[in-house]
């Protein structure tokens, strides 16, 4: 079954230098295992593709039903160096919620 990430999660993003930080939070804490199983570092890296030059790191916060992602090299140099409209990565959270997950019915 295919589900849209936006239906089971919410998110907020911001910057640290040239790195985007995205907090991804299960709307219902019982869906945290779905996020943990399917929204992997590899999945996020391939989803963003050319938008992320460096690696993707993921941290788990089961206590909040949340994952925290660092997308390195995603802001065109970051700070005042960046020529991007979204130089602070504020809309990367919304971009991530475009993701679709193909999940097993039993999860």
């Amino acid at each position, binding site marked *: 079954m295919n589900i849209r990430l936006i239906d089971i999660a919410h998110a907020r993003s*911001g910057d640290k230098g040239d790195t985007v*930080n995205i*907090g991804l939070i299960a709307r219902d804490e019982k869906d945290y295992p779905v996020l943990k199983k399917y929204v992997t570092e590899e999945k996020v890296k391939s989803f963003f593709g050319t*938008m992320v030059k460096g690696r993707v790191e993921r941290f788990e*916060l089961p206590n*909040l039903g949340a994952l925290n992602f660092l997308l390195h090299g995603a802001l065109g140099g970051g700070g005042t160096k960046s020529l991007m409209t979204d130089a602070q990565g504020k809309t990367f959270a919304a971009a991530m919620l475009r993701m679709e997950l193909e999940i097993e019915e039993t999860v």
Partner: protein
Amino acid sequence: MKEQIRIASGQGFWGDLLTAPRVQVTQGPIDYLVMDYLAEVTMSIMQKQKRRNPALGYAKDMIPLIEDILPDCLERKVKIITNGGGVNPHACAGAILDSARKIGIKKLIVGIVTGDDILTRIDELRSDGNAFRNMETGEDVATIADRLSSANVYFGAFPIVEALRRGADIVITGRTTDTGLTLAPMIYEYDWKEDDWDKLAAGTIAGHIMECGGQATGGNFSADWKMVPGLENIGFPITEAYPDGTIVITKHEGTGGLVSRQTVKEQLLYEIGNPNKYITPEVIADFTTIQLSDDGPGRVKMTGVKGRPRTDTYKVSMSFADGYTAVSTLTYTWPDALEKAKAADRILRERLKNLGLEFEEIRTEYVGVNACHDHLAAMPNPVNEVVLRVGVRGKHYESVERFGKEIAPLILTGPPSVTGFAGGRPKPSEVIAFWPALIPKDAVEPSITIEQL
């Protein structure tokens, strides 16, 4: 000892909602008002202002704001803590004392925390063996030392605590961590010790929730933004802190916005990096130990927070000049809006090339189509209007300036149905790059002074 204290966020950044501090002070009980003004780029802007006028270099628009709320703060015994002193906390304190005199206040104690600004001490500190290696690249600061425009150590809560102990009604600091502003009153009121790691971590995380103002109370809320009531009258966050380190996040009754576990979680995860290891000058806080629970309408309780012993270094943020950028926009409409914008971009780039101009980067975006979400965005069909946005970055001012002169000609010498160049030629702006480094805590010493009426 008080059973609880209420600490209110008044500003989340330099440029925040100017009405928020007055609402926090007058629409319900609080004990402290904290105002965070400093982003990385702010310090460098303030250094520039101070170079032009030695009496400046702080958050100048904070002065009328404090003048407005000061009588109420003194009457209600609300203390103010802010890092709006920027790179000139003494001048900032002087301006506040002048304001207070002007409005007839007879008694006021201002505590000033300095010692964070090490720009003029860099050579001395380097010759003592501090390499200020870039935390991300490992490079020695020698490569940019001659271009530094600011260098500030991030101090924490303890210097503020000292100022409060000396009776300050207002504490003005330079580069203090955002979280330290909120943690300080807890340490002061409850006499928390330097190794009360769990309590220090709880207060630090409360500070993290508070540091972006309305972003914890329904602003920029992704889960369900349409359900947030009364954003026009948003209440900024208030931390209720208890002696055992229990924290309740709330806001004044009657204000707009929303406090829920979801709004608090979004802010908790904002720009935190590794959640197991949130490092401040006081403690290493572990966000994976946070337990949130509902505590009645509009109240979220935080318990269970664990902290670990602090590191023996302070973070230093340095900034340096690193070339110039300019950005300009033109708007194209139907028919063929996107094709026209793309053609204009091609023509522009060809002209820049023919002029022999060199840039480190030229970036083109189609605002309204995919400027933010790039290849993830579905193509609108048809594209009714699109903003062509082109930016350049280069080492040479002249090239970046020349780019600005190539935009307007596109209107009469490029594709049709184009408009929106009312802003004039874009001026080059200086790129401020950052150099994060560490310095041993014993190499710098915060200094606390008191000035009073």
